[in-house]
């Protein structure tokens, strides 16, 4: 018989306040398998772990039950502790008497009885556990970074600077992301391009970074340390090697399309690069708008004038396959469509503009050369109104969350407006000012006190157009009265939203996302950059709204996490994988259909087809085990015999002496 030790944790008062820990210890001593039982205030602490190690050595334990919290956090802790005493780490089980018991119970006797039951179940299960060995797998020393905004660039550089190869994949023709569109950055007002473009160039020229712009990730298979990635490289129609970036083609293209980069304030050609400092500096041909593609080979002007013969209309999208060991997802965000607030007249009134349009209007390299003017008549605005929280903190529009960056961005916009128009009247309508960050509150105070920006607490109800003026109607929460401002320019600070195709990419990557489409971290506090799929990490806005410094910090964190994998020659994987009992398998291969990780292969047994699990690929999710119609699949550590032992353990010995009428329910 197994010799099992039971260690009951108080978790401070988390458990001990609701569960009679001494009684749990005492009752578990009555079980025939248990040769040692004790309790401690914090079993996860160093002395707590030593208690386990000492007991293993002293009592020759070959099974351990830790009655404490959920295994999510501390199962690895106790596996390590047990291994430290020379016992196989897979001979330990945790009885969750905190989340499943003390935290949810209201009656101390009932909670104690339940803890005794939970411990007994685990003792019976431990008696059926088998020692397991870790699975060791080789690591492909290459990283994939998806998204070439500021976060993706940072992650790529951090990884590449350790000497590891990086593939940086960007959907747009150039890296840079939204930051490349901004004029200045808060709270220091340094020019966004001046700090970003050198990074873009550094990434492009880095010997360890391979850049794939105008490209998307189409497929990801494999597993941590050994992913196989298919990248769809959209046909650029311009040879990256031959093109010198001279820009002649851009001048001559007869097509006019609103420029995405300039937020529709200027036009671009069908052959275009988003902005002059684009990296790479090679344009693309937008086939959806190009005359050559729309009218069967008519036009062809760019090809005729290209001095280096770089233009090729014949190429198709190309799919390349790459192996990588880790993936950083930094796909960013997009701005809320301000037109959804019909009450503010965006799209109807030319002088109601969005955040991004304002950035382009004030940017020295923007369509007006940095001159802040009205789109309707080109006049300088005398009164400017900024409206916060357009698409943020508004459950009625389906976006109850705070976009986190808009308060500061609006303060920045207002300060920029003041620097350009010293005599203008500037209003900023807000719900609350959220300026938690280094130097942020000071910056907002500067806008209010030094730059004469009138911050008014109130959510405007409507913007109307009257005699060439925009009438902003709002409540003023301080006076409690309605107010109106006659404005020349209204800037809507539209919030941040997850990318439209975020759920699609999540499916390709096999990672989770929340109801708004933001990717879900593995643990909100302790694993903020990891995802549910090992080896895939998150950086920047794709995980939730955050500003540039936070995005960059998170990118470095994601890079560090990726490097934990990439710096090793091989990875140890937990051996909790599914296993086929070939005797029972009928070879229907349904398991292969339900396996998300493509871990099921075909095999032959006694001259018939059966399924086989590749333990290196299996993630132990259990989908195949639950599905198998013949009960031929079992999960190591959760096999039928072990679960059966737990169940019979629960019903075997009704715990005596506890109050309440529970006895009748457990015949």
């Amino acid at each position: 018989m197994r010799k099992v030790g039971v260690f009951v944790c108080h978790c401070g008062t988390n458990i001990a306040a609701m569960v009679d820990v001494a009684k749990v210890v005492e009752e578990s001593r009555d079980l025939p398998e248990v040769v040692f039982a004790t309790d401690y205030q914090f079993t996860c602490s160093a002395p707590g772990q030593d208690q386990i190690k000492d007991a293993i050595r002293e009592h020759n334990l070959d099974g351990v039950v830790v009655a404490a919290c959920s295994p999510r956090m501390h199962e690895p802790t106790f596996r390590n502790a047990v291994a430290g005493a020379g016992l196989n780490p897979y001979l330990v089980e945790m009885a969750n008497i905190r989340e499943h018991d003390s935290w949810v119970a209201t009656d101390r006797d009932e909670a104690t009885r339940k803890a005794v039951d939970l411990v007994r179940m685990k003792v019976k299960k431990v008696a059926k556990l088998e020692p397991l060995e870790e699975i060791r797998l080789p690591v492909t020393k290459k990283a994939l970074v998806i998204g070439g905004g500021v976060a993706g660039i940072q992650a790529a550089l951090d990884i590449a600077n350790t000497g590891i190869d990086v593939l940086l994949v960007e959907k747009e023709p150039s890296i840079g992301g939204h930051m490349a569109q901004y004029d200045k950055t808060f709270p220091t007002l340094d020019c966004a391009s001046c700090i970003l473009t050198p990074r873009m160039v550094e990434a492009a020229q880095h010997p360890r970074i391979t850049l794939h712009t105008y490209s998307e990730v189409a497929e990801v298979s494999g597993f941590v340390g050994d992913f196989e990635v298919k990248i769809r490289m959209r046909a650029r129609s311009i040879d990256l090697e031959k093109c010198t970036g001279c820009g002649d083609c851009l001048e001559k293209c007869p097509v006019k399309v609103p420029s995405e980069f300039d937020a529709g304030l200027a036009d671009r050609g069908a052959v275009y690069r988003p902005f002059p400092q684009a990296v790479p500096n090679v344009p693309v041909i937008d086939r959806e708008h190009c005359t050559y593609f729309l009218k069967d080979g008519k036009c062809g002007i760019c090809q005729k004038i290209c001095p280096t013969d770089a233009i090729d209309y014949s190429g198709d999208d190309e799919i390349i396959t790459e192996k990588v060991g880790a993936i950083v997802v930094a796909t960013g965000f997009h701005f809320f469509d301000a037109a959804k607030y019909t009450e503010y007249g965006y799209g109807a009134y030319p002088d109601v503009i969005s955040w991004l349009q304002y950035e382009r209007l004030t940017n020295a390299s923007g369509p007006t050369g940095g001159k802040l003017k009205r789109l309707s008549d080109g006049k300088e605005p005398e009164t400017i109104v900024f409206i916060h929280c357009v698409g943020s903190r508004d459950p009625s529009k389906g976006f109850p969350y705070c976009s986190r960056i808009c308060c500061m961005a609006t303060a920045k916009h207002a300060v920029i407006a003041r620097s350009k128009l010293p005599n203008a009247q500037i209003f900023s309508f807000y719900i609350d000012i959220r300026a938690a960050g280094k130097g942020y509150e000071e910056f907002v105070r500067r806008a209010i006190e030094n730059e004469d920006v009138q911050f008014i607490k109130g959510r405007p109800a409507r913007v109307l157009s009257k005699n060439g003026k925009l009438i902003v109607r709002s409540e003023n929460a301080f006076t409690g009265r309605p107010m109106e401002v006659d404005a020349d320019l209204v800037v809507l600070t539209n919030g941040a939203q997850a990318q439209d195709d975020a759920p699609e990419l999540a499916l390709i990557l096999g990672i989770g996302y929340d109801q708004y489409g933001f990717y879900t971290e593995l643990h909100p506090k302790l694993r903020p950059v990891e995802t549910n799929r090992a080896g895939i990490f998150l950086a920047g806005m794709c995980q939730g709204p955050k500003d540039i410094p936070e995005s960059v910090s998170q990118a470095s964190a994601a890079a560090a996490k990726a490097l934990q994998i990439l710096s090793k020659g091989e990875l140890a994987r937990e051996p909790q994988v599914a296993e086929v009992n070939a005797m029972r398998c009928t070879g229907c291969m349904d398991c292969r259909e339900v396996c998300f990780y493509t871990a099921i292969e075909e095999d032959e047994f006694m001259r018939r087809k059966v399924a086989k699990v590749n333990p290196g690929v299996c993630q132990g999710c259990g989908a195949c085990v639950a599905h198998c119609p013949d009960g031929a699949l079992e999960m190591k550590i959760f096999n039928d015999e072990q679960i059966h032992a737990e169940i019979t353990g629960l019903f075997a010995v009704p715990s005596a002496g506890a109050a309440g009428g529970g006895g009748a329910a457990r015949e």
Partner: protein
Amino acid sequence: MIDSIRETAGRWLGDGTIDAFVGFRRREDGSVVPTRIRKAADARRLVFGDGCVHNLMSYVDLGGEEKIGLLLKGCDGRALVQLMIEGEIERERVKVLGVVCPGLSSDGVLEPKCEACRVNAPPVYDELVATDGVEPWEREPSLDDVAAIESKPHPDRAAHFASEFDRCVRCYACRDVCPLCYCEECVTEKARPQWVEETIKPSSNFYWHLIRAYHLAGRCVECGECDRSCPVGVPLKVLNRKMAREVESMFGYVPGVDPEATPVLLEFKEDEEHLLCPGGVT
């Protein structure tokens, strides 16, 4: 009709298209039994008509390599289709001689299994034998037996089945005759752990029949062989038909009809209506 059955089976065996043919023959006492023949000359003994109630798919060794010819009625054909859908048999492994079944009677009374008939010819076949005056059809079968069960309140239903299961002798004829009950090792045979007690007693009888009903949900083709084979008359057909109705109402899936279908439990729709709350359960 019988002539063309004999001719086709003989031809297939004669030219080596198949290694064996499974059909029916008449014994000296006049009763009809399934038979497996291997010589073309034996094809002259094949018969078809009243008494040919057996589902001949039960006689196909799913793991085998022999190429088998089969005489299949509509209900038998649905079992073949369902086995194909479940990946248990390749279509190429069997040659199907379908019959347009006129409905089988015993002493002038329609067989109970024929009342539940949905399709009178197999959904897939290589050759089809016509029956005089009978066109191939598909129909919504009568649900009178299921309706009778559903009209009872839940406690009465439970009591009804408990008393029916009570006389089960656990011979497992229902399991062994069922063409869809093909697990290599039945849950009743598993010893580590032993989920189901093997002794005859009300609780383990109940448990066995519920397990089987659930394992057949979305798979049973309602051929009624379990019901017909039971030596103590446990009404298994109505139980399985009730389960089939539940699956059909929840997922719109009828087993064994469309060879291109995906098994209902293998399909997942993100907007699955009945994912969390199985509606339509009465």
